[in-house]
């Protein structure tokens, strides 16, 4: 029973990683860039939702909507002013710019809201669901997190596979040049991608802070790195891959903490990533690339 309980908390952590990883993966798939500032967008989302709930006393759904709105605007703005001018630049230049944006957001937050951590209000209460005559208790937070992740995943799959914009996105990720020739506005598609990724980051922010209720300017770094790892784990650029990678990473991390060692959990998570990449060099669901001679 203890195992099942760990599994559920792993799934819940993994769900948060998965939602963040979706943002990384979509942006990578379409803009072919590693958006290092993604973790900091999560941090901004966390602060916005914190203020809506703690300062204005508004309910959580208002906080989520407000965080999504701010993050979407933020994400699109960053893309417009920092990344768009670098469409033709080497990928390393874009990477460094993303790092600059990350510093900017972290230090901006520190300036506005100080570096000391703020206590995030309890969002979903401490209620628990008791199963098997009370042998297995799962908190409502865990259940809600997992359900939200599944909901997000289903919506995103429908959007990508069933809508016109979604197929335009797939076209852009295959070949931007050909997509332009087909009359697709590539810049608009990239903006939409950043908007979706940042919106997902806001959702992840609320779920993450509900689990780890301390909001600080560096809040986004670690989940950011972990989710980036998850995206690569699943095969970067692949949406089901990001989902799978996120869940796998969350479960591995939680089980390692429970059964092997708390201190070494990070080392083990990254070691698993390396082993996976050695067996499948482009991640679990990544496409194999073969250079034509």
């Amino acid at each position, binding site marked *: 029973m203890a195992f099942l309980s760990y599994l559920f908390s792993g799934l819940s952590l993994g769900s948060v990683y998965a939602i963040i990883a979706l943002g990384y993966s979509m942006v990578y798939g379409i803009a072919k860039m590693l958006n290092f500032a993604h973790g900091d967008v999560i941090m901004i989302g966390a602060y916005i939702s914190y203020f809506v709930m703690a300062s204005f006393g508004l309910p959580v759904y208002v906080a989520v909507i407000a965080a999504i709105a701010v993050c979407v605007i933020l994400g699109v703005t960053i893309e417009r002013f*920092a990344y768009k*001018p670098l469409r033709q630049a080497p990928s390393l*230049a874009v990477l460094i710019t993303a790092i600059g944006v990350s510093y900017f957001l972290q230090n901006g937050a520190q300036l506005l809201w100080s570096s000391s951590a703020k206590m995030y209000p309890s969002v979903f209460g401490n209620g628990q669901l008791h199963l098997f005559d009370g042998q297995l208790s799962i908190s409502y937070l865990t259940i809600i997190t997992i359900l939200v992740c599944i909901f997000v995943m289903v919506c995103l799959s429908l959007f990508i596979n069933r809508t016109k914009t979604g197929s335009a996105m797939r076209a852009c990720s295959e070949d931007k040049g050909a997509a332009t020739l087909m009359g697709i506005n590539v810049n608009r598609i990239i903006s939409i991608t950043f908007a979706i990724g940042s919106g997902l980051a806001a959702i992840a922010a609320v779920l993450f802070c509900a689990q780890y209720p301390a909001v600080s300017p560096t809040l986004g770094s670690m989940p950011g790195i972990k989710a980036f790892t998850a995206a690569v784990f699943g095969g970067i650029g692949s949406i089901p891959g990001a989902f799978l990678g996120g869940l796998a990473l969350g479960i591995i991390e939680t089980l390692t903490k429970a059964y092997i060692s708390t201190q070494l959990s990070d080392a083990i998570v990254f070691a698993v990533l390396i082993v996976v990449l*050695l067996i499948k060099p482009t991640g679990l669901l990544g496409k194999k690339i073969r250079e034509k001679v």
Partner: protein
Amino acid sequence: MKTIFDKKHISRTTTYLLVIVAYIVLTILQKTGNLGSLFSGLLVPVCCFIVAGIGLNLNVGISGELNLGQAGFMSVGGFTGVIVSGALSTMIPNGIIRLIIVIICGAIVAGIFGYLIGIPVLKLQGDYLAIVTLAFGQIIMSLINNLYIGIDKNGFQVSFINNTLELGEGGRVLLSGPMGANGIDRIATFTAGIILVLVALAIVYNLMYSRNGRAIMATRDNRIAAESIGIHVANTKMLAFVTSASLAGAAGALYGMNFSTLMPLNFDFNSSILILVYVVLGGLGNMKGTIISTAILMVLPELLRSLQNYRMIIYAIILILIMLVSNNATAKEKISGLFKFLKKNKAEGVEANE
């Protein structure tokens, strides 16, 4: 032989000269008391990051593989150095000799780590390789965070995860997990730092303009063509990776000897990223650029100190603007236009005053 040396030779010579002139000027400033304590404190760390940056530039610029874990190798070198120095402190009281041994040990151990890590890592390509170097950086930090080493009459004692060291009389703790190493004998000097920079430059330049250096660049430019003319791609990449790791290890060893305390967190992911920023801003494959950009970007936050809380945000903005200006023609135009506008206003202001 003329053709090999002409233009490249001049560029290399100016780089060496730049370092030596900087050394002379800074030493005079320091000796005459014109260098503030903040800048004096930065001299050795800047040298260390320059050496690590030169190594990373060999890896990223010359070999063309993105590496997000350079600080991990600095960490290996740094803690190796601290342990070696601690163990040898009574045997070799002479600081200079001990420092040389420490740096060499740091370089060798980091090089061995580089080799072991390189075996799996170099099978991957592009962003996948980058993420694995990131992962290794994290793993190294996590392992050192849980490592406890002590020394007493009976030799070394090592424990992992939990501190179970039971040291005999006169025993000393060399490394204590997340607290790192304390009470380090600070034997690093600016002169040692500059010599290390010059040695690193010589290693990388001489390697670049040799048979193996050409193979490294050929592999970067076109892997398939390189194989077709008989270049062993895996060995070649490994040579660049291990050399880069060794240089980072040497840099880390010197860095560790500059402070009384060294913690695993000193070499976190952010440090790896910082080194990468220095290298990219200085220009890929351009060692002189790495030296200049590392020095400027490390001193910049200190210069901006008067701006207090705003300094890091201004630093970030400068970073973004540099990338935009150096990579986008329109942005370059707009920003240089802005500068011209400011200049013009200033000039007009001067005229009005007269």
